[in-house]
């Protein structure tokens, strides 16, 4: 079982290493297939691990395995340790499974790019890092995986490095995440000095003896990392910009896997959050705010990928809401179904973008259904799943989070209302996108690209490497939610109970009430979208220009951070250089050397050539030294 975990982890690393070292001795296509193979081998390892866990009794479903000691000092020791338990196994399956499909899709999507080898090396490296994150057996290795996914994300967002915007977006993503890494590291310092260990079990045990201040700091530090990685408010501004990367990257990193790591972290470290309930409530509250704000901003975006990116933020807001209330199973369940339908949406969008030779502006699209009927169906399934229409996957998972909110008292009621408003917004922005892109008469751009493609690729909508993963994910987006049906069965949540016991147990009635409201509002949202964007063929929401302006500027968060951090840093650096470094540090010594030259001249005169004057000088010096020594002692 643990061998499976190691194979799962190391196969993608081996893939990335092979492609990097082989360089141009292998063809670009070979590199692509090495990468794909490496991720599917990882999926095999994940499956073996999963099956191995199932064979064990519930109490034994956790195994630690250490390769070597990574870092040690005195009593503090951290191993390169993996933890295999149902939570890790679930994440491994999602990461390597969805990851494998997306890398396969990339084989078609990136065909012809002259730096394909680099792309596939990075993709394999990302999958390795993500697997390290979810398999890590202690907090330090988790932070290593955490940092490495950030690095892979930086490399892939900036993959087209000759584009200024891509480079800037990559840097922004990395730096905001570095901030999150730093707050996590601070939390770990508290743990080291208070509990003496960064092992999960040891730290959780030791945490029970910690003061509430220390616990709040630890939880806050972890939450900082989670919020940065999962693009929750207020550390969310990097995610929309990250859409500068290739579309499969957005599907893999910025939808299905990496951005959900914050949710995983909260579930993994849930004992610490439960000891700091106000911080856990904060997590839920931030989730609720994010899901509303991102939903609002998504209403006015005109870039197909940015709409989906805001939708991702919004959906992760639901997950934060869930795990913040202690509904760990529900949060993880939504994480899984979201990975299916959001990857599907990105990849279907990628097919459209690919077909339209890189165009991402929805105002130039329209009537794509005519030329890409299968993509149209896939996108429809993804959209319905996202809005949460039964029996698609999003319905089951989102509603179980809302039910948990309904079962969580007064604070839960507020969050429940926010979640319902979010469902309405989801319906509007999702189907605004869908109607504008797919329905109506084909736009001039679409017509222009309608011919010529049919001959090149088999299906006319993309090569099989792209269409097959989309088909598989379409299927998963439909049936992926059936592993957990309220009032019928819940094997998914039960498996995770061993790792993280849920704090809320909504009743079946609450489940159905939440479902009824959510579906109703989702349908209402679709109706509104229909009224504005399909029935009347209006492309923009009417009036309210000021509000739109604010939304299009993403609530001015970029400007705020610019004013709060970047400009002051530049300003202070400039002040220091002008007023300290150049005149004092750089200049003082210039003055000093001039002074030395003058002193040298004076000393030259002292070199009289008379032996007795030298002897006198030496004697004086010795006398002074002796006096100094005596005085000192």
């Amino acid at each position, binding site marked *: 079982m643990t061998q499976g975990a190691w194979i799962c982890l190391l196969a993608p690393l081996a893939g990335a290493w092979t492609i*990097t070292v082989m360089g*141009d001795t292998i063809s670009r296509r070979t590199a692509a297939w090495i990468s794909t193979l490496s991720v599917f081998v990882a999926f095999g390892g994940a499956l073996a691990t999963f099956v191995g866990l199932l064979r064990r009794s519930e109490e034994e479903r956790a195994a630690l395995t250490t390769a*070597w*000691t*990574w*870092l*040690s*000092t*005195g009593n*503090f020791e951290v191993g390169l340790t993996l933890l295999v338990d149902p939570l890790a196994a679930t994440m491994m399956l999602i990461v390597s499974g969805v990851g494998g499909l997306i890398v396969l899709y990339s084989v078609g999507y990136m065909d012809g790019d002259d730096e394909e080898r*680099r792309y596939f090396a990075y993709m394999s490296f990302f999958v390795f890092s993500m697997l390290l994150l979810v398999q890590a057996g202690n907090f*330090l290795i988790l*932070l*290593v*995986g*955490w*940092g*490495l996914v*950030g*690095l892979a994300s*930086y490399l892939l967002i*900036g993959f087209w*490095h*000759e584009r*200024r915007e891509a*480079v800037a977006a990559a*840097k922004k993503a*990395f*730096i905001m995440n*570095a*901030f999150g*890494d*730093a*707050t996590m*590291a*601070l939390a*770990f*310092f*508290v743990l*080291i*000095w208070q509990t003496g260990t960064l092992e999960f079990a040891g730290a959780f045990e030791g945490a029970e003896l910690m003061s509430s201040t220390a616990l709040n700091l630890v939880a806050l530090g972890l939450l900082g990392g989670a919020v940065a990685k999962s693009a929750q408010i207020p550390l969310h501004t990097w995610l929309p910009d990250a859409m500068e990367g290739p579309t499969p990257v957005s599907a893999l990193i910025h939808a299905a896997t990496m951005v959900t790591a914050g949710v995983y972290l909260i579930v993994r470290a849930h004992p610490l959050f439960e000891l700091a309930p106000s911080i856990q409530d904060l997590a839920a509250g931030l989730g609720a705010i994010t899901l509303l704000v991102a939903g609002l901003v998504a209403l006015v975006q005109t870039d197909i990928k940015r709409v989906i990116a805001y939708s991702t933020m919004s959906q992760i807001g639901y997950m934060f809401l869930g795990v913040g209330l202690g509904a760990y199973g529900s949060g993880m369940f939504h994480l899984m179904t979201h990975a299916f339908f959001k990857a599907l949406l990105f990849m279907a969008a990628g097919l459209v973008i690919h077909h339209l030779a890189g165009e991402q502006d929805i105002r130039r699209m329209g009537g794509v259904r005519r030329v890409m009927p299968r993509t149209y169906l896939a996108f429809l399934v993804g959209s319905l799943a996202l809005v949460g229409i039964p029996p698609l996957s999003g319905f089951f998972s989102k509603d179980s989070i809302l039910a948990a909110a309904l079962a969580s008292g007064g604070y839960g009621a507020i969050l429940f209302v926010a979640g319902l408003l979010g469902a309405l917004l989801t319906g509007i922005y999702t189907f605004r996108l869908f109607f504008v892109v797919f329905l109506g008469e084909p736009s001039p751009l679409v017509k222009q690209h309608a011919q010529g493609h049919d001959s090149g690729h088999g299906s006319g909508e993309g090569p099989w490497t792209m269409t097959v993963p989309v088909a598989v994910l379409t299927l998963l987006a439909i049936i992926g939610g059936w592993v957990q049906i309220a009032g019928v069965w819940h094997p998914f949540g039960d498996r995770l109970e061993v790792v993280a016991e849920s704090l809320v147990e909504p009743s079946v009635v609450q489940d159905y009430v939440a479902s009824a409201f959510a579906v109703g509002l989702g349908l209402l949202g679709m109706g509104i979208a229909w009224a504005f964007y399909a029935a009347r063929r209006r492309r923009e929401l009417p009036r309210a220009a000021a509000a739109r302006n604010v939304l299009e500027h993403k609530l001015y968060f970029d400007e705020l951070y610019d004013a709060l951090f970047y400009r002051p*840093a*530049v300003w*202070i*650096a*400039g002040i*220091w*250089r002008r007023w300290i470094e150049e005149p*004092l*540090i*750089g200049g003082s*010594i*210039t003055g*000093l*050397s001039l002074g*030395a030259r003058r002193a040298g001249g004076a000393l030259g005169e002292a070199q009289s050539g008379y032996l007795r004057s030298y002897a006198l000088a030496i004697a004086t010096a010795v006398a002074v*030294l002796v006096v*100094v*020594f005596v005085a*000192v002692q």
Partner: protein
Amino acid sequence: MTTALIFLPLAGALLVWLLPLPGRASGVLATLIALAEVALFAVAVGRFDFGESLQLVDRQSWFSDLGVSYHVGFFGFSLWLAGLTVVVCAAAIGYATWANRERARAYHGLLLFLTGSIVGVFAAQDLLVFYVFFEAMLIPLYVLIGVWGGERRAFATVKFVVYTMAGSLLMLASIIVFGLSQGTFDLVDSGVSSNDWVFLGFLAAFAVKAPLFPFHGWLVDAYRESPSEVAAILSGVVSKAAVYGLFRIAIAKFPEPVQDFQVPILVAATIGLVYGSLLAFRARDVRSVTAYSSMAQMGLIVMGLFSLNELGINGAILQSVAHGLVSASLFLLAGMLETRTGTSAFARLGGLARGRPDLATVLLVVGIIALAVPGSVSFAGEFLILAGIYAEGWGWAAIGAGAIVLAAMYMLRLISAVLHRSRGEAVRDEALDLRPAELAVVLPLLAALLFLSASPNSITERNFPIQRADVAEAAE
């Protein structure tokens, strides 16, 4: 064994000076000697028992009545610093050979002489021996910068000489006072002192050498005007003489003054960290960024040392090795860029990644390790340092963690400015990817960094048992 490690390069220097070989051949000879030194170091590591304290000791009485002896040997931590020295110097000498510097025999001889002197500093267990090697290390540097440096080399050399001389003289005074008062100059035999002035004399020399804020006036000019391989040794290795001195002398021999001055030193180190990071962020060329980031890193290392606990000190040693490798690689890469484009100014660079995969990969990996991405050896070092300093107050750790974000900002800026975006005006189509000789110089450093990233514990576990070593007993 230790003596051989010190005198092999010194004898090699003599050989290179005396043999009338043509330029390249003398370089090849010097490179071979440097590689032999690396092999000798490997043998020393093999013979070393990391469970024990001072080892591989050679001792010859010099002036017995003054208690001066030629006394050399290694602790675990100083063995790693010596290892850093021989590896970085071998790479530097190899690169100098390839770069074909003028007056090659003198140049390579000086580099070998420098190597031997630095190893001597890390091995010295007697204060006068330490002083001799410390000065012997500076003299070749004066000449290397003053003769082979860039346009403003005279200015840079004067600054460097004045600063280091001032520090050295204060240290000499302290050595004499300390030795006479103890009745011995031996670091193992001597006891501890509580004299603040003597402590400050030592501190001055090491603060200049590191450099600590505000004693860094020589830094940027020296790093900018040196030949790139000399800058690599200067920032990667010579700065670590300060680490050795601070730990082996200042902390081990002056427990009381260390306590008294802990906070001011931490303040200076922390200011250096933030100041260096911010100036690196606004610097306009590769060398200046590396220079200021070096200063920031030395601030961080001193923070670790003066946390005065195991986590911080062990982290400081690990980070010294990591930063030595990183900084040397960056300066060598800066030299390689300069031979291609004639400049290291960001405004005239850019777009070098296109069509130059080796250069791009090497610079990217080194840069990413330099910014301490989690999982890298520099991350491990910084994590331990900050975990250590946290015990002295969470504020230090918070500022340190903030500086890591700044490190990400300036290193990513460097990477993008050189490799990414549209092509800079100084970048010509003919500018080649890294040549095999250049790869041969920089890949071993990179391999060492990757190996240590996979297992930083190979150093932290074998540093030295802090509790058992007499160094730490004194520090307690």
